């Protein structure tokens, strides 16, 4: 197992895609903060809710709210890049036929896949952490410029930041393992990334539609990723009214955190069992 992990690390560190994905996540978070800054600079929009929304935006990008708002942003961008990273990491092994070279040398398939999974988890964690540092710096700078509240900065807050990194990574991981599953099913990178991201976006749309339905249909989102991800992310804190009016803000209503975590963990176990079973049972090359 240690050999497979060492080999995977050797490969991942020399892979340009790793650095591109990491930098892309950081750049996207920075870009979003700059866009927020430009919107705030314009002042409130001339509409009934415009002033409240403007206040919420200012609140969101303040250093005091960097944990709830920064991580809400990162959840979106880090999911995109982590899915691309995981899907290409596994799918390229099929595209390049290197998976056959490795397994025909006596490397256990289970070890090979575990090393891939470990890489995906570590990369997700690092992406969330690195892009949080960008959010931290950006919100500190804009708070300084506009005199926005900094809030307290003590040990409890630092610990809360680390817990939030863990929570945000956890919410992203089902899509990472799904990307591994699709790469194993289709034995290619492109379809794996496409299908995972497609599902990520479509699930958001379906959740919105089904939540407005009545009866049984309205409960379907309760067992999907989005609603339960929100439930876990809610523990990072809320900004403003909590009605989700501002991009990426999480609403105050929804299932409790423990239930959200349990359902996401359940999904991850199911997907991982499918990943390992499929990889173990299927021909590497046809």
């Amino acid at each position, binding site marked *: 197992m240690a*050999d*497979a992990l*060492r*080999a995977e690390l*050797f*490969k991942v560190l*020399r*892979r*340009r895609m790793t650095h591109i994905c990491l930098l892309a996540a950081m750049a996207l978070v920075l870009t979003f903060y700059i866009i927020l800054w430009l919107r705030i600079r314009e002042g409130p929009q001339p509409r009934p809710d415009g002033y409240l929304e403007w206040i919420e935006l200012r609140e969101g990008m303040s250093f005091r709210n960097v944990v709830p708002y920064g991580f809400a942003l990162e959840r979106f961008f880090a999911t995109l890049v982590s899915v691309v990273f995981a899907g290409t990491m596994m799918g390229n092994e099929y595209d*390049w*036929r*290197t998976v*056959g*070279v*490795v*397994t*025909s*040398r*006596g*490397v*256990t398939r289970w070890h090979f896949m575990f090393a891939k999974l470990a890489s995906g988890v570590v990369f997700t964690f690092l992406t969330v952490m690195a892009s949080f540092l960008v959010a931290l710096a950006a919100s500190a700078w804009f708070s300084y410029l506009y005199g926005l509240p900094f809030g307290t900065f003590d040990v409890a807050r630092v610990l809360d930041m680390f817990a939030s990194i863990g929570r945000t990574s956890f919410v992203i991981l089902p899509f990472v393992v799904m990307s591994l599953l699709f790469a194993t099913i289709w034995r290619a990178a492109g379809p794996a990334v496409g299908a995972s991201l497609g599902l990520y976006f479509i699930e958001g749309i379906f959740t919105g539609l089904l939540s407005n339905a009545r009866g049984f249909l309205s409960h379907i989102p309760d067992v999907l990723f989005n609603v339960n991800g929100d439930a876990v992310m809610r523990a990072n804190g809320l900004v403003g009214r909590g009605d989700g009016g501002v991009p990426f803000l999480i609403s105050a209503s929804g299932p409790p955190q423990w239930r959200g975590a349990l359902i996401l963990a359940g999904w991850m176990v199911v997907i991982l069992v499918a990943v390992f079973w499929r990889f173990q*049972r299927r*021909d*590497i*090359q*046809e």
Partner: protein
Amino acid sequence: MSDLVVEARGLKKQYGATVAVQGVDVCVERGRVFGALGPNGSGKSTTVRMILGLARPDEGTVSLFGQPLRERSAELLRRVGAVVETPAFVPYLSGRDNLRLLEKYTPGAGAEGIERALHRVHLEDAAHRRFKNYSLGMKQRLGIAAAILNSPELIVLDEPTNGLDPQGTREVRDLIPELAAEGRTIVLCSHLLHEVEQVCDAVAIFQRGRVIAQGATKELIGRGSRLEVKVAEPDAAQAILDASRFGHALTRSNGSIYIDGAGNDGEEVNRLLAAEGQYAAILRPIQHSLEDVFFELTGEPQHG
């Protein structure tokens, strides 16, 4: 301990409605250079994939070094080095880094072993270049370097001279007997008949997913060769041979009798004739090439 390094029995592999391999038995003895010969799509690469654990047989069993592959695949495959189809490596890594990567997966060769393998395939000067910038010939060389990296007991080479220039082809042909001389067993898949004839001492001929002939190369060629017999009284000689086991394989031409498939049986024919007072003026085996045997057995011209 079994002397068979590879023992595949009753292998069957089907992809949808297409039967790729049907009832294939392949046995490779220790220290042999074994050639798997056949046109593209004849089932030899699928058989190799099953031997390397890359594909699971629908039916049949594979044993390596006398032990079942299915139960101890990781342990057994560590004693094997292989290049399947065109060599596959991580494109953004250099040739040397690709070998370092494989060495990390299955440690043993060390840095020295990597340099030794690169030297053996004459790739030291290009080892720092990225794999994606390699020519096909350089990729083949790197594939062979990877196959021999951990000093395996069994080396499986699938079309190893594809893309090599004449000098490279010759180097690979020279390398195979060298590796065999070190006590390794080699399985060489090829559709190049003369290549197999030159380096392999045992052959299996594949056609439409089946092994249609298998055995020592010399024996197979001998089986396909003819014996020319010239005697003073050809009619009398033919009558003698007609009554023997060679009776079904006789032809006459220009005063000579030809016996198909009897290239190795000169002594027996001579004894039969002499016993009846017929003494051969000429007794000459007309050797066929593996190519002749192949076409005779498959009954079709070879493509690819």
